[in-house]
């Protein structure tokens, strides 16, 4: 995706700096324990000291999770942790259950008839599927950005204000809309047309509007399901830069088919594939740099080097 963009011919890109080369975001070492030093209930220190499947400050921790659509097991035996304020990428071939797993994390798949999970997912130490947990509350705290931009057929302003209104936001909505649009790096492009339909924007702008809409309800985690697959390279780059920026405050989990994208933006990469029973499983989880340069499993190596998938 390091295509040199036609900056000379496209006025919209004129003010943008030249696209940076593919890079790994951060030098990846053992994860920073963070100020709290981890939570005892969901963090298991890895005795070897290497970045293992359990990290020290996990927002989401999956323990032996299997996902079922009726009698079909789509994902099996997944145990992993999602680090706070990091970007975790889920990669793997089509049909390996990445999206199922992602949609499980904010209980979006509850809506699919016959869907259920085994195992345990904890969110900030609480059982995500506990009987007292209201999925409506979960979904505000764990936001989601979809594959195809899906702004509401409302004004740009109303799109961003939607979540605030339904969740009874008591502050100044004007201010919230501006702040959210600024954080999504969309404000300068839309500040003069907030009353226009969100659907009148370009695809990349629509996706940033959806991100603005998501951060307006102040979630802790943002799940992104192939957020750039419907976008052109320039919009993709903008979204990637935005994700890097957002990861200072939010935990991000991104499903992507684009391995360069995973390499560019993520701190941790989880590689999934599927077995003969078509159930997806996690092959390897590790710092992105290791997954891409020195994978431990041959399946991972084949996939990231393009020999499979």
């Amino acid at each position, binding site marked *: 995706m390091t295509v040199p963009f036609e900056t000379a011919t496209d006025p919209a890109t004129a003010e943008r700096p030249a696209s940076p080369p593919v890079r790994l975001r951060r030098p990846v070492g053992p994860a920073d324990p963070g100020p709290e030093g981890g939570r005892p209930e969901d963090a298991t220190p890895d005795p070897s000291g290497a970045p293992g499947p359990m990290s020290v400050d996990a927002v989401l921790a999956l323990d032996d999770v299997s996902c079922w659509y009726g009698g079909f097991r789509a994902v099996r035996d997944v145990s992993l942790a999602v680090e706070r304020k990091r970007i975790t990428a889920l990669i793997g071939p089509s049909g390996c259950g990445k999206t199922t797993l992602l949609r499980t994390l904010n209980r*979006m798949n509850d809506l699919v008839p016959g869907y259920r999970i085994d195992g345990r997912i904890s969110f900030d130490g609480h059982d995500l599927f506990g009987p007292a947990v209201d999925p409506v509350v979960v979904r505000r705290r764990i936001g989601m950005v979809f594959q195809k931009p*899906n702004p509401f057929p409302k004004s740009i302003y109303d799109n961003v204000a939607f979540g605030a209104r339904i969740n009874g936001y008591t502050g100044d909505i004007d201010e919230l809309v501006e702040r959210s649009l600024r954080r999504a790096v969309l404000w300068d492009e839309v500040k003069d047309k907030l009353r226009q339909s969100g659907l009148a924007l370009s695809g990349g702008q629509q996706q940033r509007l959806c991100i603005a809409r998501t951060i307006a309800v102040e979630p802790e985690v943002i799940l992104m399901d192939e957020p750039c697959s419907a976008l052109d390279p320039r919009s993709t780059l903008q979204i990637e830069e935005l994700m890097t920026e957002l990861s200072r405050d939010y935990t991000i989990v991104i499903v992507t088919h684009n391995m360069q994208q995973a390499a560019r933006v993520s701190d941790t990469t989880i590689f999934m594939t599927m077995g003969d029973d078509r159930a997806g499983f996690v092959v390897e989880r590790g710092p992105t740099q290791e997954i891409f340069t020195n994978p431990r499993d041959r399946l991972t190596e084949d996939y990231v080097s393009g020999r499979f998938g």
Partner: protein
Amino acid sequence: MSAATAVRATPTFRPALTRRRAAGIAFAGVAVAAIGVLLLALALLLWDILSRGLPWLDADFLTGVPSRRPERAGILPAIVGSLQISVIVGLLAFPTGVAAAVYLSEYAPAGRLSRILRTNIANLSGVPSVIYGIFGLALFVRLAGLGFTLLAGALTLTLLILPVVIIASIEALKAVPDSQREGALALGATRWQMVRRAVLPAAAPGIMTGIILAMARAIGETAPLVLVGAFTFVTFLPDPFQGGYTVLPIQVYQWAQRPQADFQAISAAAIAVVLALMLALNALALIIRARLSRSIQW
């Protein structure tokens, strides 16, 4: 095609562009002819009605009451009756129909029961309207004790158009992409908030279209109203809760069956009024629809 190409060993393409283009032109011709037949029939109908009715269509006719003498007859009671009925039908059928459609489309678990319900509602929209009249007579006029009132007529027509409203609304709701529902839920919306703030606004233009079509049908109905007591000779303005009312199609029918040419002419004038009312209703629908769908382009 030459014999040489026909016997060529390797498979090849025979574009036959002339034939393919001709097929397209032929189809366009058929389509234009279909439209032409429709427009011709409509033009003949309009010309027939307007040429006979227009000379009679004046303020006296619109504000007068029926009379034994065609030159003094008017259709105000029928206009008022039709307007009252359509307002009541609209007020009853709109919320009931949309609520039923929202339930079936957004709440009811998908399954056999829901499918059976939907099929039956679709079937109901095909039941002859006179059967609704008999049902209305038994239920509203007799059992509920409303008597032969305009209200009983309006309730009967509400039942008649409810299936149409429900089916059209379900279709409009189904046309809203699931991505809209997920978008709302992902922001922490409850199911009702999702329906109220994301799904219904997006489906509103389609729902409106269905309602207006159903209302037009209600305004044009005659048979069921005859059974629930719409009179043919009403010289006073109807009170929805007291007996005695008529509507435009019934007035048209009553005049049209008189042997005198003048009565047939005022019948044509009354038809012109019905058409004008329909046109006004459809224009209103168009305006509302355009307003609602201004921002909706998937």
